[in-house]
């Protein structure tokens, strides 16, 4: 078990890059499907927030990041984790409450972090990770690490004070930070139309004196291109960028719901904008991948998830005996 290698660069710059982009989007898709399946079998405790339909956003963003670059993530965070290169088995193991899980069964779906891949952790509190990413960017600047910190959050978080305070700090201190909003249209059941008095969320950037850009969050290429510009700007010391990636979650908010707040037609429209076939078509057209290669990559993703589940299921359950020892890090002598 180890972190997956990251490949930086434009998703259509080479066969290798195209393969990476497709493989990671498929991994996320298959991971989420597997989670849903495990949940249905009663093998998973608690809750889950699936990001099926949103795979292009984390994949495109993370192809502009080094392994040292940091991210903070959200309750809907499996995709960010995978895109940043986390180990699939340890992720599944965490969801199943196993000792080898990323948090040893103490965190579950909403709290997976992976130091090795620069993932400072998913977060159960909407907006909770945004100031933390600003702090990570502050540390990068103070320590001259040359890294960037990306905070993934949803449209709902943009109305939290945490977003405002962190965006302002990052702006005034010109921190190497990217505020990456996956605008999937709904904060649980509240639509952006109801929750915002502006039409374009990227306009908020102006209020902090930082660029605010819109991208098609279902287009991994477009996401990557905007991300790369933001990363370059951050690393040059010019400060943060707000990226609004327009996307959509196919599934309910958590576990599932009755979709009382949206129409079947709307869901159907967005299903047609599936980021995976869209990228496959483009990669084939640009002769970066063949149909056979794409089929193989999808199978490879499925196999990886199946192998991860099979291994995680067999792992040892987390042991309550160590609970008290885990509250504080030991003070080294």
């Amino acid at each position, binding site marked *: 078990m180890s972190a997956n290698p990251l490949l930086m660069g434009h998703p259509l710059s080479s066969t290798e890059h195209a393969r990476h982009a497709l493989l990671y989007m498929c991994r996320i898709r*298959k991971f989420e*499907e*597997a989670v*849903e*399946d495990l*949940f*249905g*079998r*009663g*093998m*998973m*405790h608690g809750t889950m927030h699936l990001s099926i339909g949103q795979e292009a956003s984390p994949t495109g963003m993370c192809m502009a990041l080094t392994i040292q670059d940091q991210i903070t993530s959200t309750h809907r965070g499996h995709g960010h984790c995978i895109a940043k290169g986390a180990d699939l088995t340890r992720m599944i193991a965490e969801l*199943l*409450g*196993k000792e080898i899980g990323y948090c040893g*069964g103490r965190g579950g779906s909403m709290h997976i972090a992976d130091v090795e891949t620069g993932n400072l952790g998913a977060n159960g509190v909407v907006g909770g990770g945004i100031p933390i990413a600003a702090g990570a960017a502050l540390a990068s600047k103070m320590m001259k690490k040359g890294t960037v910190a990306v905070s993934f959050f949803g449209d709902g978080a943009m109305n939290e004070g945490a977003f405002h305070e962190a965006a302002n700090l990052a702006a005034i201190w010109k921190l190497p930070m990217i505020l990456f909003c996956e605008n999937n249209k709904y904060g649980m059941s509240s639509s952006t139309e109801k929750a915002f008095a502006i039409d374009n969320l990227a306009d908020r950037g102006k209020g902090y004196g930082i660029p605010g850009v819109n991208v098609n969050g279902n287009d991994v290429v477009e996401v990557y291109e905007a991300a790369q510009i933001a990363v370059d700007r951050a690393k040059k010391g010019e400060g943060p960028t707000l990226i609004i990636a327009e996307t959509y979650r*196919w*599934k*309910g908010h*958590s*576990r*599932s*719901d*009755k*979709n009382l707040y949206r129409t079947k037609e709307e*869901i*159907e429209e967005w*299903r047609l904008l599936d980021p995976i076939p869209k990228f496959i078509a483009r990669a084939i057209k640009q002769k970066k991948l063949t149909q056979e290669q794409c089929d193989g990559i999808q*199978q490879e993703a*499925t196999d990886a*998830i*199946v192998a991860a*589940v*099979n291994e995680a*299921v*067999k792992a040892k*359950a*987390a*042991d*309550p*005996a160590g609970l008290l020892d885990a509250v504080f890090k030991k003070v080294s002598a």
Partner: protein
Amino acid sequence: METGELLLFHVKVGDQVKSGDVLFEVMTDKIDMEVEAPADGVIETLVGNPGDVIEIGKPVLIMLTETEVMAFDFGGDAAAQVETAAPTPPPVAPAPVVAAPVVVAPVAPTPPPVAPVVVTPVLVAPVVQPVAPVITPAPIVAAPVVTAPKIVNASVKAVPKARVEAANRGIDLRTVHPTGPDRTITFSDVNSAQIDPAVLKRQAANKALIAKGIEMTRGIAQASFNRRAHANFDHAQLISAWAKVLRGRPDIAVHQHVGVSLIIESKYGSALPVFRDPDLISVEELRTLVTTTSDAAKNGKVPIAMLSGGTTTIFDLTTYSMSSATPLLFPNQVTSLTIGYDSESTKNISLTIDLNICDFYDGALLLDALIASL
């Protein structure tokens, strides 16, 4: 959350469905949800019916799909679940996909993967079972309750260290004069308290009685013991004397009056006329009353007024050539006496006491007092 109620199907057998189409709705204690098709396919069987309460992991419908599905190897314990769920798809033929796993998905509560907590049955020990001797010196308050081998006296206010000290020294806190605020016994109150010589005597007596061995009857907290009574006496004398003895111990007699029940056998069965406060009339008067009442009882006639109010009971075994017996105490009675003849034709009095209310030493005192007054 272990089940969900199937509300309705959105599909019927033979329907073509696409991935994401709503198959059915379930209601759980947490949420109502629509369950979507995990893949494109055809509905083959509807397993449940609307209104059914379905366990997590059990199939709700079966659909056929040509879409590749993920087949996990759960091995071991999880195998059973797999069996009822998704069989591995055959390589070419359409594969049955059981939608069941998805069904209760939104709510499934797996038992948390922590070490099982083994709940071992705990035997609750009867409170008074091993009956340790308890010292209750001439108490002012009625009914000291014997529940623990130490003097607890929670009704008496005392600081913690005073209790510890009192327990260590065998001091009954009720005998200690409180000087603290709110009549609380302070440590120094206990510290300077003299142990009442009577308490010491009682303690020794109890120990001696226990050393002799006390017969425990029927596993409840009562004990019986005997004395030979050389004096000759009739029922009236016995009733009067016993009532006098009990009146001297209101803490044991409990009630406002003393009521002596005398068991009289007749062809109609046992009668239990009660002689109320028999020590407050002369023995002669009482004798007349006992005689007339006994005669009446033998004819099955006891005045209604004499049928209640007993606080103690006397069994006369002399006509049965029995020496003693250990009767069960009547409810709300702390004592009972039996009289019989022993092998040497000497009268024998046996006292049974409720150990929840008094101790061996009390019993010994009562019996000695009775015999002395006969």
